[in-house]
């Protein structure tokens, strides 16, 4: 069956059997190897991905369930950084019809029919934003700085769980090509006072990510550190 998925800022089309899980699709066809193959029953969280702003297990989600939805994996962090204006595009996209008054579609030509269900299905590529691939997101940097990584198998899942938590709390925006504008998913207002995040909230958010090196203290420290950095930069 044919699927259209907004994967890391790029609209991608796939043709898969009905029983393919999102995990198999991401690793097998989309080259998203940050999504790890773990338990296949939703217990370990190694395959965590963000689907429409919510953190889910890719191993117990059919690829077909992600059709016409937005999926973010760790490979999407350069896109997140680029859309947050942390880096500027290296190559300018040629103007498209409609965007420039000088270039108008030829009225004699029938409009081309698009399968796209997304508002802005423009591709985000390494060629356009090479510098975005050289940067780490503050959450990734915090994991490095606090030595929160041992074997690293659970780390992508933990980072995505943290990003989903931060988006929910309003510390960051998760970009989208489904919506015209980025929508703040959290409730926190800019400049609001009060505790950033409690350790309990972080532990609750990371509870589905099992680390068999059993290193939970450092990841929690890393997320706290990233939260402080993100809130002071706002």
């Amino acid at each position, binding site marked *: 069956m044919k699927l259209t998925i907004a994967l890391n800022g790029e609209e991608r089309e796939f043709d898969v059997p009905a029983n393919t899980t999102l995990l198999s699709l991401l690793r097998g066809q989309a080259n998203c190897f940050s999504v790890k193959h773990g338990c296949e029953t939703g217990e370990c969280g190694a395959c965590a991905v963000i689907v429409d702003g919510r*953190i889910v297990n890719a191993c117990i989600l059919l690829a077909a369930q992600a059709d016409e939805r937005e999926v973010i994996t760790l490979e999407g962090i350069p896109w997140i950084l680029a859309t947050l204006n942390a880096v500027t595009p290296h190559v300018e996209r040629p103007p498209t019809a409609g965007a420039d008054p000088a270039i108008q579609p030829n009225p004699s030509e029938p409009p081309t029919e698009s399968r796209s269900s997304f508002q802005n299905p423009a591709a985000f590529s390494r060629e356009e934003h090479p510098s975005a691939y050289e940067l780490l997101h503050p959450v990734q940097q915090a994991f490095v700085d606090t030595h929160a990584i041992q074997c690293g198998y659970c780390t992508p899942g933990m980072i995505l769980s943290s990003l989903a938590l931060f988006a929910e709390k309003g510390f960051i925006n998760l970009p989208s090509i489904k919506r015209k504008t980025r929508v703040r998913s959290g409730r926190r207002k800019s400049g609001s006072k009060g505790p950033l995040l409690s350790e309990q909230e972080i532990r609750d958010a990371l509870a589905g990510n099992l680390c068999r090196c059993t290193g939970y203290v450092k990841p929690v420290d890393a997320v706290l550190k990233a939260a402080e950095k993100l809130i002071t930069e706002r």
Partner: protein
Amino acid sequence: MLPNLRKYYRPRSIEATLRLLSANPVRCAVLAGGTHLLASSRRDVEEVVDISALKLKMVKRKNGDVCIGATATLQSILENPRLRKFADGILVEACHRNSVSRMIRNQRTMGGEICANWKRSDLAAILLALNARVKLMNFSLEEKEMLISDFWSMPAFRTGKKGSGLVFPGLLLELILPTPAPPFAAAYVHVEQIESQPSFVSSAAVLEFDENRQCGEARVALSSFADVPCRLPRLESFLKGKTLTPESIESAGALGFDEIRPLVDSRASGTYRQAVAPVLIRRLLGRCLKRL
């Protein structure tokens, strides 16, 4: 992973969903969140009907009742500010307890808990104690509302085993939770080996009192104690007309559950369940007394 799955449908109307389900009721399964179905590796499922596009995600108040759509996720219930204090917060507490993983709670739906995991879910005891009702639509497109205890007593549920395809001939649309009449006290207790594991036994109670603080309506239920979640009629009739005191709680705990055959599984023995249930009941009623 469903090894023999060949067809996936995501209909946009309830009528189309029921048409698809009725066409192949044995080999076709309803897919809501998928946390139970996809983790089960069932070989008999050849078609799935994904009901996520049916607009059954709502959580709303209607005539004093709380209505929860079949595809509302446990996390959405947990985050709903209107439900935080509903029935002394036992519903929200059980949704959180259902899985420590936010990923699972983001996928797992109320409908899935009622239809696929009802025998072992902590939510089952709470729904029985709250006297929940379900709204269904059968293959003839007739809507029907019934008590959840009657729903689970349907022959399809009683005889249904894992791998037997569709559990009942129709579609669950909505769960309706009546608000207990005040003054009331509600509590939920559970026992497990570690926090991330399912409960060995869980219990929930909703006690409604009159102006003299005597118990009028009492509903107490156990989950994971017997083969199916059950109400405790002997205990309920004992509590009716009584004032909740430490002494009456002690007597209630001593009633025992000889009439129910305890479950024996990999989590706990029947003897352990028989021994732990009275302790849970005492804790449960003690918690109700504190909340009164």
